[in-house]
């Protein structure tokens, strides 16, 4: 008998359908992964189970948990289900915890919300829970800001399992975390499933995570279930076209092999670059070189100093030690108009395309900005150049008078790229350009990147935390850890020499359940 059975659930927001006729079931001790891209309705479906949708949503269908229809429960009954029979793990652990209470107090609170027990009993239980999620008991008194993202997610999981729920809903539990931490959290979830015999409903867009932990998979697209089945079958022989596309757009480490390019004169040279914030060394004695037409991949986890290096080159980080040389010119010695001229030779692509475009400026205005600042193109000549750039990033010229909020994420990032290449730069810096995008969109943006790079021959500093993405594009890779380059070269992923790189490569998820399970054991 199944623990949770969802039967033809539909959710509408006003007149807009979000979820259509979704059915699946989950038995005790099983991990079911609901996968899909943004807007597929996976989160809406899960949140509807606990009545956590906004008031504008109307839900039809049935969802039985242990034989009770969750949709027919009163608010009071639903509150006793939340946190008691069903535990919830959120994507952003920092925002899921209250910053002014210690994590211990918050776990005690979670215990006492559903159990009538004394304070000392609850404290004992909280200590036990900390041990269960692999945190030292001394962390009981720590405040959320004193802990790392991975530790916080452990606390959130401890709170979710405090009352031994029969179902754990995890909404993108590892998306905000670094790969090495992600691997640890997934191992913890696997371990808890075994120990507590809880079923886990995992909502994710990451096929690597699915391959790692799921027993069965539900693939959603546009609010409908496209396909469902055991994880090995879905990955080995997907029946539906959409599933096949989704799996094909996933890039894994070790799938790309390209010959090393011969590099002539370096376009960018960093000589012992260091950046300090007060006493903290964000970047520590980094020396790099990028040649014309070369792509250097810069990888590292959050806080490793990747974006600070980009900031020093682009001038967003005002003070640094060492020298930055662009096309033979030392940037740090330049001032005024010659500095402005150099700025025009660097293109920059940001991570979040929505935030990098002015919401009150049309697409054409955003793309024209570098041209207005650095060239004398005006009027129809400017319009023609903007149209040519839109064409180069494969966008229709009809979009020129639209505003950013009217575009999809992939289209916005194309606009960001068009702006970055508008002046035909010597150096293009791409700071996590695809990590805010869905996998299928990411694959197309990477294709665009590659073809642009081949035709325009700019040197490129490609920054990412995703090793597979970097491997796709980069000729050479530098690995950054705590502000230092620990390893660089063409061999970094195939034969990592540094222990940190080895850990990084080992933690990178592979979208293949067979390989993933073999690696784990």
């Amino acid at each position: 008998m199944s623990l949770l059975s969802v039967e033809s659930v539909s959710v509408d927001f006003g007149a807009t359908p979000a979820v259509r006729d979704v059915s699946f079931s989950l038995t005790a001790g099983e991990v079911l992964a609901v996968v899909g891209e943004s807007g597929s309705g996976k989160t809406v479906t899960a949140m509807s189970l606990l009545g956590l949708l906004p008031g504008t949503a109307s839900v039809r269908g049935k969802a039985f948990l242990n034989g009770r229809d969750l949709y027919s429960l009163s608010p009071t009954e639903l509150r006793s289900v939340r946190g008691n029979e069903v535990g919830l793990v959120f994507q952003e652990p920092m925002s899921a915890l209250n910053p002014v209470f210690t994590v211990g107090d918050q776990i005690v609170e979670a215990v006492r919300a559903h159990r009538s027990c004394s304070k000392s009993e609850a404290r004992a239980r909280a200590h036990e829970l900390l041990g269960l999620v692999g945190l030292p008991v001394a962390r009981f008194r720590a405040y959320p800001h004193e802990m790392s993202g991975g530790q916080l997610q452990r606390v959130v999981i401890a709170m979710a399992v405090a009352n031994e729920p029969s179902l754990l809903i995890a909404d993108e539990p590892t998306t905000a975390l670094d790969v090495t931490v992600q691997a640890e959290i997934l191992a913890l979830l696997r371990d808890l499933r075994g120990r507590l015999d809880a079923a886990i409903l995992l909502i994710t867009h990451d096929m690597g995570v699915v391959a790692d932990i799921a027993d069965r998979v539900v693939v959603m697209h546009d609010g409908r279930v496209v396909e469902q089945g055991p994880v090995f079958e879905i990955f080995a022989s997907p029946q539906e076209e959409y599933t096949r596309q989704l799996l094909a757009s996933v890039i894994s480490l070790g799938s790309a092999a390209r010959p090393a390019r011969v590099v002539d004169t370096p376009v960018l040279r960093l000589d012992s670059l260091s950046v300090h914030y007060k006493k903290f060394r964000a970047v520590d004695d980094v020396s790099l070189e990028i040649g014309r037409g070369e792509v250097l991949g810069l990888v590292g986890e959050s806080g490793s100093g990747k974006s600070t290096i980009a900031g020093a080159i682009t001038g967003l980080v005002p003070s640094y030690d060492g020298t930055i040389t662009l096309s033979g010119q030392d940037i740090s010695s330049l001032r005024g108009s010659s500095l402005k001229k150099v700025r025009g030779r660097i293109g920059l692509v940001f991570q979040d395309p929505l935030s990098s475009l002015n919401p009150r400026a049309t697409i054409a205005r955003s793309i024209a900005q570098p041209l207005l600042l650095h060239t004398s193109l005006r009027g129809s000549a400017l319009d023609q150049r903007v149209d040519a750039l839109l064409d180069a990033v494969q966008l229709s010229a009809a979009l020129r008078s639209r505003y950013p909020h009217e575009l999809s994420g992939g289209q916005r990032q194309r606009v960001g790229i068009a702006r970055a290449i508008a002046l035909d730069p010597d150096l293009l810096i791409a700071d996590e350009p695809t990590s805010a995008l869905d996998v299928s969109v990411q694959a197309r943006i990477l294709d665009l990147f590659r073809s642009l790079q081949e035709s325009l021959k700019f040197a490129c500093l490609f920054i990412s935390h995703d090793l597979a993405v970097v491997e796709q594009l980069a000729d050479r890779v530098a690995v950054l850890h705590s502000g230092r380059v620990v390893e660089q070269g063409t061999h970094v992923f195939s034969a990592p020499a540094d222990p940190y790189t080895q850990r990084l490569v080992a933690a990178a998820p592979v979208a293949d359940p067979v390989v993933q399970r073999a690696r784990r054991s």
Partner: protein
Amino acid sequence: MPAAILRMLRRDRWALAGAVTVTVIGFVAVFATLLTTIAGHDPYTYDSAALDPATGQPAGVLGGISGDHWFGVEPLTGRDLFAIVVHGTRTSFFIGIASTVVSVVLGVLVGAAAGYLGGWTDRIVTWAVDVFLGFPYLVFMIAISMVAPPEIPKPLLLIVVIGFFGWPGIARIVRAQTLTLKQRNFVAAARTLGAGPWHVFRTELLPNLWAPIIVVATLSVPSRIGLEAALSFLGVGVPVPTPSWGRSISEAIQWVGTDPMLLIFPGLALFLTTWGFNVFGDGLRDALDPKSGVR
């Protein structure tokens, strides 16, 4: 933005009523001379025929309201109250809006500079804002009006003084908004291209600041009209005989026992104007606030 305002007016009855009131009063202010010509009186001419010769009080009931004098007349002088209120609208509206423009220009420039440049600029501006907000400005304004050389026209002096004391509130809001905008990458994108502060302000910040600026400006017009009325009430506003609501109210106080209509008409005009601007401004805030989800 205009589309959002139209949508708001269609949905929000109160904001619509406010907008209509403000528009009507604006028309009255612009066409004051035309209106009083139609009514047949100007605000300066004495008319003893409309007075009761024995007491100096307006002849007839309700302060002398008649087909000839629509709002009645002033005691002792017999000047037409309708003409006084209509011309007072022009004074109040003009000073209220012009001083708001002065504060908005100052506040936006100073606030955006503080938020965007940071450092010492920011420290000095924040410090000045705190001082100005705690300053006993009414006393200061009275003092200034007393000592200012008579060559300076009084309305100009009022506009500059009221406008100058209004910038800190606007600067504070613009500074906060600029600080959040500065975090957004499109500002960083412009900076990395070598754009200077003025370019960033004009093309990146200002278009995103319009919504809050319009809301704050609309909401601050009534308090400025009230301030002008208060100064005129205290006798340091526009000089006699220029009509002003504040002075009309001030003069009506001594007649309130015998001729209450003298207080009611200018008071009602002042009330309607401040009410209209406030309700319309509230509606604007709901429509233009990014948090309300309508953009």
